[in-house]
């Protein structure tokens, strides 16, 4: 008998039984379909303990590193604590270190959260008060920065935006939960071409991934496209241009909306025109939902493997 803990509740797994069978037997309404490790409908995440490698068959390297596994083909021999794939788990206290402008409507928030483990490019849930929770991607690097860095667009009517702009100050306490998201440098070959496309504050995870790629000695060519609504939105452009000048394998392509520019400065159209050969590339896409969906589909249709496309689509806050 092996013990698993599912959302705080102990469930026994009988010898030879799968985790899915045990969950269903225990009355857990666990989603599932093929029961053969293919359709991934039942995917869960082990937040403590290591799932058997065969229960991670067909998952991406990023998912494996994060402990994702398929309960329908998982016969554990050691205890596991598991959660639904979108559960961010317990939250940790963090302290605001600095809030600085990056452009006229984008700020950089840095918070200190001791011992918070993550990969650059993943996202967290930031909680800054009762009912005030948002997901933000991380531009920082855990081995280089003693803080978590987020890039946040300020919306005039946004509750979090107003709180950040008018109330929150260095020294204030907030909470962070996670991390989550598979948009990070994992399963990439050091010689593979990398294609990074970020729109707006979608640059945050892209910037995190870029720094991680450099730190891990990536040798293949890296092209980074950043899209913005105006030139002012092309934040970090000086840093990125300097990197582009000093690194032979890195090319920075800023795209700001401009009726006189090719494709009107649209980042997706610009990148799709240049990137004709993508079947070998490791691709990272971050930005609004429509942009990410369009790029993912178009890049897949022209030969990119879905396994090589990591993406993070931002959805607007509900309240």
């Amino acid at each position, binding site marked *: 008998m092996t013990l698993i803990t599912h959302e705080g509740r102990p469930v026994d797994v009988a010898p030879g039984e799968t985790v899915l069978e045990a969950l269903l037997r225990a009355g857990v309404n666990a989603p599932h379909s*093929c029961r053969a490790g*293919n359709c991934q409908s039942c995917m869960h995440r082990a937040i403590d303990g290591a799932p058997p490698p065969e229960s991670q068959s067909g998952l991406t390297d990023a998912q494996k590193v994060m402990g994702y596994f398929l309960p329908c083909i998982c016969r554990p021999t050691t205890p596991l604590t598991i959660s639904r794939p979108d559960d961010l788990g317990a939250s940790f206290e963090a302290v605001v270190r600095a809030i600085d402008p990056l452009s006229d409507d984008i700020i950089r928030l840095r918070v200190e959260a001791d011992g918070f483990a993550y990969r650059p490019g993943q996202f967290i849930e930031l909680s800054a008060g009762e009912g005030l929770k948002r997901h933000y991607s991380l531009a920082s690097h855990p081995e280089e920065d003693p803080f978590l860095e987020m890039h946040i667009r300020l919306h005039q009517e946004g509750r979090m935006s107003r709180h950040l702009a008018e109330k929150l100050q260095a020294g204030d306490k907030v909470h962070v939960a996670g991390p989550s998201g598979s948009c990070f440098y994992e399963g990439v070959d050091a010689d593979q071409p990398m294609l990074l496309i970020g729109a707006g504050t979608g640059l945050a995870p892209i910037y995190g991934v870029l720094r991680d790629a450099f730190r891990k000695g990536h040798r293949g060519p890296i092209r980074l496209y950043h899209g913005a609504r105006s030139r002012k939105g092309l934040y970090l452009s000086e840093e990125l241009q300097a990197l582009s000048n000093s690194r032979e394998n890195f090319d920075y392509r800023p795209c700001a909306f401009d009726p006189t520019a090719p494709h009107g400065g649209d980042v997706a159209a610009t990148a799709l025109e240049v990137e004709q050969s993508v079947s070998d590339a490791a691709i990272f896409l971050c930005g609004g939902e429509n942009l990410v969906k369009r790029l993912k589909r178009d890049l897949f*249709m022209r030969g990119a493997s879905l396994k090589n496309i990591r993406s993070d689509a931002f959805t607007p806050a509900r309240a």
Partner: protein
Amino acid sequence: MSSLYDRLGGEGAVNAAVELFYRKVLADGRIAHFFDGVDMEAQIAKQKAFLTMAFGGPNNYTGADMRNAHKRLVERGLNDSHVDAVIENLNYTLRDLGVPETEVKEVADLANSVRDDVLNR
């Protein structure tokens, strides 16, 4: 005589076919609209499960699973012509990969065997 799944090359064959097949489906105006707005990663896993079944590989699908999975699509108008289109794309995929006609036919027959469950009738 080895099983159809083994003759086709097992899981490796499914992996080689699945993205090719999904691209053909998304490029097919008759059926592409059923995939508008779906999560592509989740969808390709389901395509892999479907191909594994159609290749005669290990699966534990029940008729009820097939019915539930397609119920909402049937409500949106999924009918025989769409199943025909999917199987046609499957045939083209296998031919692209050099699979002999005998096996192409066997795969099509297996895919056809779940037609009534898929269409909820």
